[in-house]
């Protein structure tokens, strides 16, 4: 295969209907270029996993096409499995494996020779600072370390596209950073990375581009900055309410607000920042709120506005 092949993943108008009624994917189109880290964001049931399963050849779309370079992944699921590496959201079934065994056997399954697999295994174990668990059985690993071993299994011999479903679940903050470095490295090597996540704050830092999907449809696609462009000139004023306090009457300067637990997030105009701070200080002074913070709007604000509800319990949304 010549080097000039364009290894872009192209998902074109993919539709998947379950039981003749649930449209899990509804005309989804997106593309992920080699070297790109692409985020796929959306609430539970948005259709993210359904899309991933169609890319890796476990489900067949009812309509549309999925291609990777010259390969039609819908017509050729064997090619899909060879070209895609997959880290599922569930933990890897490696309780009986020593960490290095699980990684090395996965590398062999992906077709690499023993020396290459061992070299890559050592490289990744060192990069993620996992040396002390190299010979530990999976059953004795903590959730976070097991997750990292799963990440190494998925990337030891990467395919043209690496699909990572919530890779940092249970992982400590230091090793999260190391993991994102390795994700970047994959990009530098020409691998396309499809990152499936709920963690919008983390995704904002890690991805080059992203798509927000809900109810099987693409709501928006672009770079994190372009997604936030509609929010230029607006600020988020976040208040931590005193326990047991209900949401106070909101002044007209508050354009949007969301309450999750004791956290009240409001959006105000940049020009009214001083008034906003005054209002927040007043609430703190009255003991209604404990503290406040003013900052620029984040991708999470965009995400919440687009998907229209919040996944946490006890939440209220009022756009």
């Amino acid at each position, binding site marked *: 295969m010549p080097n000039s092949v364009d290894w872009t993943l192209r998902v074109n108008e993919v539709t998947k209907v379950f039981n003749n009624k649930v449209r899990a994917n509804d005309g989804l189109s997106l593309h992920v270029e080699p070297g790109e880290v692409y985020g796929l964001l959306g609430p539970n049931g948005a259709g993210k996993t359904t899309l991933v*399963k169609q890319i890796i050849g476990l489900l067949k779309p009812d309509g549309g096409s999925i291609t990777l370079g010259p390969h039609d992944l819908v017509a050729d699921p064997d090619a899909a499995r060879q070209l895609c590496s997959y880290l*599922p959201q*569930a933990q890897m079934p490696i309780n*009986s494996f020593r960490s290095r*065994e699980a990684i090395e056997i996965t590398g062999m*399954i992906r077709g690499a020779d023993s020396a290459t697999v061992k070299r890559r295994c050592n490289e990744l174990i060192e990069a993620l600072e996992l040396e002390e668990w190299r010979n530990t059985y999976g*059953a004795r690993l903590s959730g976070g370390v097991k997750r990292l071993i799963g990440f190494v299994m998925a990337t030891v011999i990467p395919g*043209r596209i690496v699909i990572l479903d919530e890779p940092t679940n249970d992982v400590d903050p230091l090793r999260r950073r190391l993991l994102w470095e390795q994700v970047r490295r994959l990009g530098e*090597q020409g*691998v396309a990375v499809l990152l499936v996540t709920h963690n919008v704050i983390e995704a904002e830092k890690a991805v080059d581009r992203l798509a927000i999907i809900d109810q099987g449809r693409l709501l928006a696609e672009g770079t994190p900055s372009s997604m936030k462009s509609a929010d230029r000139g607006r600020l988020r004023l976040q208040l931590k309410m005193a326990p047991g306090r209900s949401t106070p009457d909101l002044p007209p300067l508050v354009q949007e607000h969301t309450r999750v637990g004791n956290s009240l997030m409001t959006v105000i105009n940049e020009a009214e920042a001083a008034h906003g701070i005054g209002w927040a200080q007043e609430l703190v002074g009255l003991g209604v709120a404990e503290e406040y913070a003013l900052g620029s709007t984040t991708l999470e604000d965009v995400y919440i506005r687009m998907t229209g509800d919040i996944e946490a319990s006890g939440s209220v949304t009022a756009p």
Partner: protein
Amino acid sequence: MTPSATLRSGPSYWWRSYLAILRWDLTGLRMVLPITVLVLSLAGAGFVLAVDLFFGQVPDKAALYVCTGVLVVTLVTIGMVLAPQLIAQQKIEKTYDFLWSLPVPRTTAAFSWVTTNLVISLPAMALALAVAMLRYDLPLHLTPMLLPAVLLVVFTGTMIGYGLAHAVSQPMVTIAISQVLIFLIIGFSPINFPADQLPGWLASVHQWLPFAPMADVIRASITVGVVPDVARSYLVLGAWAAASVTLTAVVLGRRK
């Protein structure tokens, strides 16, 4: 680590994948493999001895049927009962999708299961046979046909269980079916006793089920004059082998 630009294919891809996935399966069962071999061996040998303890004096024909039948039970228990339960467990624990996303030809995974089942059941069968020969004065004559008979029985039993586990989407249903199967095999199949001891209708049904032919081909390979028409048994069992391979191929190739 630049990703590969070519797709693998051909016999060497198949063979390397088979070896790698077999290593995966055996390592994955490492914690339970020795105990499973031990339990199956003790169950097989124990059943041979228990019949004698229970009845005091076992008629020669009954001893012959029990001692040859128990070999079949040890050969198919793993493939038809334990393996479907393991696959059902993968579905419950949501590891099934990862395992099926691995880049190996589907057939290598099926053949790896057959090999794994042979590794577990052969020692148990050998021990049961040795105990039977030591405990009873049986007219056993081991012939080279024992090898193809064992391979065909293990292959068919494994493929039936494997196809079933993949075909049934609900894991709890798979577990229930496999539990019914073990009762059917041990209690209601002419494996440990002659078919003429069953009600006529059930004996007729068993002419077309795989269990009695499994017992016939094993029994015919180590006895003389006990099995009247082993060719028919090979035909019926061969048909079940072909049908279960077809079912497995269809199910594994299917994408919902």
